[in-house]
C-alpha cells in the first residue's frame, strides 16, 4: 500500500500501522518536540505513544493529534507529523458520525487474553456481553509474542473460545472501539472507528460511532503498558520501549535496530532481546538494574552469548538526530547514581522500567491507587462497585494465571447480573516464572544535569522541572502536574505519570502510595467533536418550532429571528428595505390603520379543576376570584425571591377553567414551575395543567381599523359595549370556530383571534384578504417591541433579568393588597433589600438628540465628566426609533429612577457620551385613548 507522510510517498503492508510502516522503511526521526524542538522518534506501539503524533487527512476530514501507533495505513492515507499541537479543520467535516445507545449485562474492556476469557465465561451464561477492543485485532500482548514462545496451549485455547463467542447470541465483539470514559452507574462511552481515516466509506455508513453504554457489570481487562526510565538523553530517536520493539518484530515483521542495548528492571525485556537476537539484531548488552538476576530468561540470554550487566543502569544516551552510544554504569546501592562508567555504541536502546496496569477508567470514577511493591507500579485499592479487574491491569502477567483469572472475572460479573453457568475448565499453561523486578525510575547523569532527563516526552517535561516544582514548595502530585505540565498531554501521560510520581516521592521523601497518581479524566484519547455531536449538527442540531402560519411568512420574504426554539418573523421587508425602514413602515401602518401579527408562539397553559382560582391566586401576584367568565386579566408571576419571572394574560373560560398565556420563551419553564408548586407544596389543590401552545394558532389584528377588518369575517358583535376591552367571545371567524379576545400589546384597538392550529393559515389568509382595503400590514417582533415600548409595556427578559421586582417596574397595581392572598414571592417584596427606595426602577429616556439611538445595554451615569471608574446608576433595556413620537426613545432601569424625572443621564460610549432626559416609561397615548378605537 502506498501512503503519504510529511509530503513524501511511502509504502507499507496491509495490517501495518503508520508507525510500523515508517519503522520498516528505516525512519528514525519522526518529528520535533513541542517546546524544546528536539528530534523525536517512535517510542511505543500503542496508545501510550508520547511522540509520534500526526495530522491525518485533508480539508474537512483533517484530524489532528492521532497517534501513528494507532493509525492503520490504508491506500492513499495522508499524514503529517505534529510537534505536539495539531490544528482543527476550517472546513465542515463531510463525514457522518452517529451514536448508539446500548445496554449490556457485562461489558469487557480489552480483548487480550484476560478479556477474551472473561467475555467467553460471561457470554456462555447467556448474559448480554459486550467485548470492546481498541486495536484492529484481538489478542492484546499476545499479538507481540513470537510463535515459539511458551504458552502455546493457552493461545490455542483462546482461539477456540473466540470461535465459540461468535456463536453466542447475546455476545458482541467490536474492534477499533476504544472505551474512553467511565461514569456513574455503569455508564460508559466508547468510540468505534468504522471507516478508517483515508479509507473510502460506503454510502450512509458513519465514519465514527459513539457508543453510550449502560453496563450492569464491568470487567476491566485493559492490560498494562510498559514504563520508560528517565535518564539523560532518554528522548533521543532510537530509544524505544522494549515491549514495543518486540511487538514490531513479531506482529509487523519490523526489526528495530542493528545493534541494540537493552536496559531493563525486570525479566520481560529479555524475551524482546532474545527474539531480536534471533532475528539478526546484535544485542550489545542487557543492562539490568537487579544485582543478581538468575531466572531462566537471564540464563537463556547468557547462553545466547549476550553480555548481561547486572546491578547496572544506562545513565546517558548520546547522539545527534538519533542514539549513537550509551554510557552505562553500576548503580550505587539503592540510589539512582552510577559509577564505573562504560560506553557502548548502539543504534537502538530498548528500555523496560516495568509494567503499569491500565486503570485510568476506574480512576475516572475515583478509585484509589496503591503502589504495588513487587511490580513497582500502581494498582487499584478497591474496585468500584459492579467492576472487576482481570489480567495485566490487575497486576497478573503470567498467561496461565490470566487464563484462570479472566473466566473467573467474567463468571462473577455474569453471576452478579443474574446469570449462572457450569464451572469453567482452563488449560494448564507451561511457562517460566519471572523474577521480581528492581524498579528504577530515573538515573542521575554523571554531570548532574537533569534538564535532558525526560519524564514526559510529549510535554517536554524533565526531572529538572519536577525538581523545580518541588523546590517551589509543591508537594501534591496535582500541583506538580500543573507546574510542569507533565501528564497533561493528549495521551494523558501514559508513559509519564508513574515516573513523575516516583521522582516527586523521592524528592520529597514520601512513600509512592502517599504521593499517588494524577487524577484521570475522560476521554482517554482525543475524541473528535464530530463524534460527540453525532447526528446533532446542521438542521438536526436543535429542534425548530414553527407556527401553522410559517409558510406564509416565508412566502412573504419575512426575516426570521429565533425566540427559544421558535422561528418568528422579525420584519417583512418590502423591496430592499432594511430592518429600520421596515419597522418604521410597519409601526406607522399599525398606528394609522391596521396590522396583523402571528402570536401563535405565546405559551398557553390550560388550567382546570375546582381549585383553579386558588391556584392562580397563589402563582400570580393579583387575584382571580372576581374575574368573570368570558373576561381576561393581565398577570405577573414572581419567583420566591420576589423577582419577576413571567407575565401573561389569564382567560377565564368557565368557573373552573382558565387558559394562561406565557411569554414565548418562558412557556416550558412556567409550566414546570406551576407543576412544581402543585406537586411539591400544594398537593391538596385539585388542579390540572395542560400545555396547549401548539393546539392553537393566535392572530392579533391591531390598529384603529381592526374592528372593521374582523367585522367582515365574523358575526360576533365587536362594538365596545358588546365586546369590551379584556373581554373574550366565542364564535366563528372566517368559517372557523374561534375564541376572540380584546387584548392589546400596543395600546391600539386590537383583537386576538385564537383558532385550532390546523386552521391557522386559512384564517390568517382570510384576515389578510379582508384587510386589503385598509392595506393591512403584517408585522414582526421588532415592530411589536417598538409599539409596546412606546406604551411602556415591559418584556420579561428584556426589561428584567431575574433581579427586577414588579415594584421596580412600577407595576404595584398588579400586586394584590389582600392580606389573605399569599402569592409566591409576596413575603420577599418587603425584605429590607427588595423594598429599598433606591433600587433600579423602570423609566423612559429621551435622548437630547432626537436622532440618536442609545445602544441597548449601555450603562448610565449621572456625571459624564467623572473619571473612570464612573458610578454606574443604571442601564438601557430597550431602545428604538419611533415614528409615532417622531424621535428616538428608550426604556431603562435607573437607580431611584422614579425620583429623577426631568434629570439628565449619560450613556458614556467610546469617545462620546449620549445625554438623555429621564421621563416616565409611558410615552405614547398615556391616557389610553386609542384602546377602544
Amino acid at each position, binding site marked *: 500500500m502506498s501512503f503519504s507522510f510529511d509530503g513524501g510517498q511511502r509504502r507499507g503492508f496491509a495490517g501495518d500501522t503508520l508507525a510500523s510502516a515508517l519503522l520498516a522503511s528505516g525512519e528514525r526521526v519522526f518529528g520535533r518536540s513541542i517546546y524544546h524542538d528536539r528530534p523525536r522518534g517512535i517510542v511505543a506501539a500503542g496508545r501510550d505513544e508520547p511522540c509520534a503524533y500526526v495530522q491525518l487527512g485533508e480539508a474537512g476530514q483533517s484530524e489532528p493529534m492521532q497517534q501513528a501507533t494507532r493509525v492503520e495505513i490504508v491506500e492513499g492515507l495522508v499524514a503529517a507529523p505534529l510537534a505536539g499541537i495539531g490544528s482543527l479543520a476550517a472546513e465542515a467535516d463531510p463525514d457522518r458520525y452517529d451514536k448508539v445507545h446500548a445496554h449490556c449485562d457485562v461489558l469487557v474492556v480489552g480483548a487480550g487474553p484476560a478479556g477474551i476469557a472473561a467475555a467467553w465465561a460471561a457470554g456462555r451464561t447467556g448474559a448480554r456481553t459486550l467485548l470492546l477492543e481498541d486495536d484492529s485485532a484481538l489478542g492484546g500482548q499476545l499479538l507481540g509474542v513470537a510463535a515459539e514462545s511458551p504458552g502455546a496451549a493457552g493461545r490455542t485455547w483462546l482461539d477456540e473460545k473466540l470461535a465459540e463467542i461468535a456463536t453466542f447470541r447475546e455476545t458482541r465483539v467490536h474492534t477499533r472501539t476504544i472505551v474512553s470514559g467511565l461514569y456513574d*452507574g455503569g455508564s460508559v462511552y466508547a468510540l468505534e472507528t468504522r471507516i478508517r481515516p483515508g479509507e473510502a466509506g460506503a454510502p450512509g455508513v458513519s465514519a465514527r460511532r459513539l457508543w453510550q453504554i449502560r453496563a450492569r457489570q464491568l470487567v476491566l481487562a485493559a492490560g498494562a503498558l510498559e514504563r520508560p526510565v528517565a535518564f539523560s538523553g532518554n528522548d533521543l530517536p532510537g530509544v524505544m520501549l522494549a515491549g514495543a520493539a518486540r511487538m514490531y518484530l513479531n506482529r509487523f515483521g519490523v526489526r528495530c535496530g542493528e545493534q541494540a542495548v537493552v536496559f531493563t528492571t525486570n525479566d520481560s525485556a529479555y524475551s524482546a532481546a532474545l527474539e531480536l537476537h534471533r532475528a539478526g539484531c546484535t544485542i550489545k548488552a542487557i543492562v539490568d538494574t537487579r544485582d543478581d538476576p538468575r531466572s531462566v530468561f537471564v540464563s537463556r540470554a547468557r547462553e545466547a552469548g549476550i553480555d548481561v550487566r547486572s546491578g547496572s543502569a544506562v545513565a546517558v544516551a548520546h547522539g545527534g538526530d538519533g542514539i549513537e552510544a550509551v554510557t552505562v554504569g553500576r548503580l550505587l546501592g539503592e540510589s539512582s547514581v552510577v559509577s564505573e562508567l562504560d560506553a557502548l555504541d548502539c543504534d537502538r536502546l530498548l528500555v523496560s522500567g516495568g509494567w503499569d496496569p491500565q486503570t485510568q477508567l476506574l480512576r475516572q470514577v*475515583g478509585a484509589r491507587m496503591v503502589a504495588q511493591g513487587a511490580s513497582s507500579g500502581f494498582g487499584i485499592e478497591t474496585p468500584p462497585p459492579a467492576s472487576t479487574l482481570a489480567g495485566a491491569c490487575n497486576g497478573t502477567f503470567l498467561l496461565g494465571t490470566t487464563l484462570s483469572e479472566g473466566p473467573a472475572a467474567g463468571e462473577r460479573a455474569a453471576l452478579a447480573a443474574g446469570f449462572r453457568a457450569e464451572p469453567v475448565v482452563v488449560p494448564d499453561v507451561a511457562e517460566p516464572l519471572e523474577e521480581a523486578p528492581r524498579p528504577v525510575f530515573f538515573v542521575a547523569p554523571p554531570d548532574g544535569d537533569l534538564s535532558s532527563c525526560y519524564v514526559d516526552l510529549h510535554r517536554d517535561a524533565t526531572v529538572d522541572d519536577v525538581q523545580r516544582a518541588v523546590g517551589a514548595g509543591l508537594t501534591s502530585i496535582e500541583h506538580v502536574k500543573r507546574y510542569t505540565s507533565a501528564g497533561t498531554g493528549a495521551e494523558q501521560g501514559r508513559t509519564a505519570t508513574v515516573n513523575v510520581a516516583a521522582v516527586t516521592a523521592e524528592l520529597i521523601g514520601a512513600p509512592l502510595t502517599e504521593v499517588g497518581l494524577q487524577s484521570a479524566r475522560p476521554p482517554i484519547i482525543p475524541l473528535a467533536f464530530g463524534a460527540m455531536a453525532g447526528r446533532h449538527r446542521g438542521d438536526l442540531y436543535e429542534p425548530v418550532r414553527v407556527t401553522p402560519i410559517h409558510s406564509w411568512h416565508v412566502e412573504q420574504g419575512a426575516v426570521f429571528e429565533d425566540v427559544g426554539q421558535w422561528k418568528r418573523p422579525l420584519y417583512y421587508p418590502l423591496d430592499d428595505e432594511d430592518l429600520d425602514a421596515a419597522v418604521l413602515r410597519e409601526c406607522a401602518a399599525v398606528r394609522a390603520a391596521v396590522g396583523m401579527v402571528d402570536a401563535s408562539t405565546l405559551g398557553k397553559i390550560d388550567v382546570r379543576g375546582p381549585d383553579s382560582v386558588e391556584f392562580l391566586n397563589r402563582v400570580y401576584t393579583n387575584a382571580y376570584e372576581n374575574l368573570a367568565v368570558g373576561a381576561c386579566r393581565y398577570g405577573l408571576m414572581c419567583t420566591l*425571591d420576589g423577582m419577576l419571572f413571567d407575565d401573561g394574560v389569564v382567560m377565564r373560560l368557565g368557573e373552573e377553567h382558565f387558559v394562561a398565556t406565557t411569554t414565548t420563551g418562558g412557556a416550558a419553564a412556567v409550566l414546570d414551575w406551576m407543576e412544581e408548586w402543585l406537586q411539591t407544596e400544594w*398537593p391538596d389543590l385539585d388542579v390540572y395543567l395542560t400545555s396547549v401552545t401548539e393546539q392553537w394558532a393566535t392572530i392579533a389584528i391591531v390598529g384603529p381599523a381592526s374592528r372593521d377588518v374582523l367585522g367582515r369575517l365574523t358575526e360576533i358583535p365587536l362594538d365596545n359595549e358588546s365586546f369590551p376591552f379584556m373581554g373574550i367571545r366565542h364564535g366563528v371567524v372566517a368559517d372557523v370556530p374561534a375564541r376572540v379576545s380584546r387584548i392589546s400589546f400596543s395600546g391600539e384597538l386590537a383583537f386576538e383571534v385564537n383558532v385550532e392550529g390546523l386552521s391557522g393559515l386559512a384564517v390568517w389568509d382570510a384576515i389578510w384578504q379582508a384587510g386589503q382595503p385598509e392595506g393591512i400590514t403584517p408585522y414582526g417582533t421588532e415592530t411589536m417591541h417598538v409599539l409596546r415600548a412606546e406604551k411602556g409595556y415591559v418584556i420579561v427578559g428584556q426589561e428584567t433579568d431575574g433581579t427586577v421586582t414588579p415594584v421596580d417596574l412600577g407595576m404595584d397595581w398588579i400586586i394584590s393588597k389582600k392580606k389573605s392572598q399569599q402569592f409566591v414571592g*409576596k413575603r420577599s417584596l418587603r425584605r*429590607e433589600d427588595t423594598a429599598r427606595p433606591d433600587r433600579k426602577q423602570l423609566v423612559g429616556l429621551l435622548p437630547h438628540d432626537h436622532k440618536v439611538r442609545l445602544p441597548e445595554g449601555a450603562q448610565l451615569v449621572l456625571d459624564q465628566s467623572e473619571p473612570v471608574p464612573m458610578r454606574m446608576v443604571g442601564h438601557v433595556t430597550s431602545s428604538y426609533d419611533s415614528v409615532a413620537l417622531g424621535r428616538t426613545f428608550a426604556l431603562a432601569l435607573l437607580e431611584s429612577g422614579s425620583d429623577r424625572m426631568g434629570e439628565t443621564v449619560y450613556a458614556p460610549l467610546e469617545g462620546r457620551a449620549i445625554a438623555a432626559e429621564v421621563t416616565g416609561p409611558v410615552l405614547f397615548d398615556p391616557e389610553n385613548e386609542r384602546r377602544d378605537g
Partner: protein
Amino acid sequence: MLLISCPWCGERDEVEFHYGGESHIAYPDDPEAITDDAWGEFLFVRNNPSGEFRERWLHTHGCRRWFNLLRDTSTHEIVRSYRMGESADQSSGAERESD
C-alpha cells in the same frame, strides 16, 4: 451518569431528569409572621453535606412527576428514591435494585 430509579417509572438514565435541590425544606406556616432573617434563611440557605443528602428530582422526560432521592454526594450512590410526601426512612420507597 446516574441511573435513577423514578418511583413511578423505574430505572432511567439521568438525562431524563432535572435536579431540584434539597428536599424537605418546609415552607414557613406564615411567611408574614417571620423576620427577614428567617425568611432569607428559608429562601437562600441550603445544606451541602458530604454524604447522604435528600434531594428533589423531576422526571422531566418521563412521567413529569417530582420525587425525592436519597443520594450520597461523595460516592454518587443512590440509596433510595421515594415519592413526594413520603419520608426518606419509609421502606415504602422504591428500593434501588442491587447492583
